[in-house]
């Protein structure tokens, strides 16, 4: 079963998005 594996490294995500040609899902959350 798939599971969303989040990163908090925006620079790495942008690089990965460019290499894979995928858009980014950017989620801002409040844990409180």
């Amino acid at each position, binding site marked *: *079963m*798939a*599971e*969303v*594996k*989040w*990163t*908090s*490294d*925006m620079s790495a*995500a*942008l690089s*990965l*998005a*460019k290499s*894979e*040609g*995928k*858009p*980014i*899902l*950017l*989620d*801002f*959350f*409040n*844990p409180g």
Partner: protein
Amino acid sequence: MGAVTYPDSRVAEFVVSRMIPVQLLFDAQPYAAQYNIKWTPTMIVLDPEGKEHHRIVGFLPPDEFVPGLLLGIAKVSFDRDDLEGALPDLERIISSYPRSAAAPEAMYLRGVVQYKTTHKAEPLKEAFEQLKRDYPSSEWAKRAMPYGLL
């Protein structure tokens, strides 16, 4: 979102296959300021350059979130003039999630994509007729009203 929507298998499979997921605290700088975050949850669809194309503010259940993300991805394609890339995602929203909040906008945008592809007015008129029939109270039916005169 973390308790209900993201653990849902349909959402997880969609995000894993189609997107690069990034999660940040609401006050994480410089991004909270860059994307003007004022409430949570806020979910933004960015292109690979980091440019925003679609924003969802507030909780959405899985059956609304997947079509919402599809619309965001279609907007990334549309805004980058990849009309052929946008069309399948718009069609999927309309056919697989016709009751979702994203469906009327997808129907509108499909008409625009088909117009820009064919340079013929018929798709715009058809979009208005379909919106008037299927989503008569939506804002997108109102936005398409001028196309009924074509």
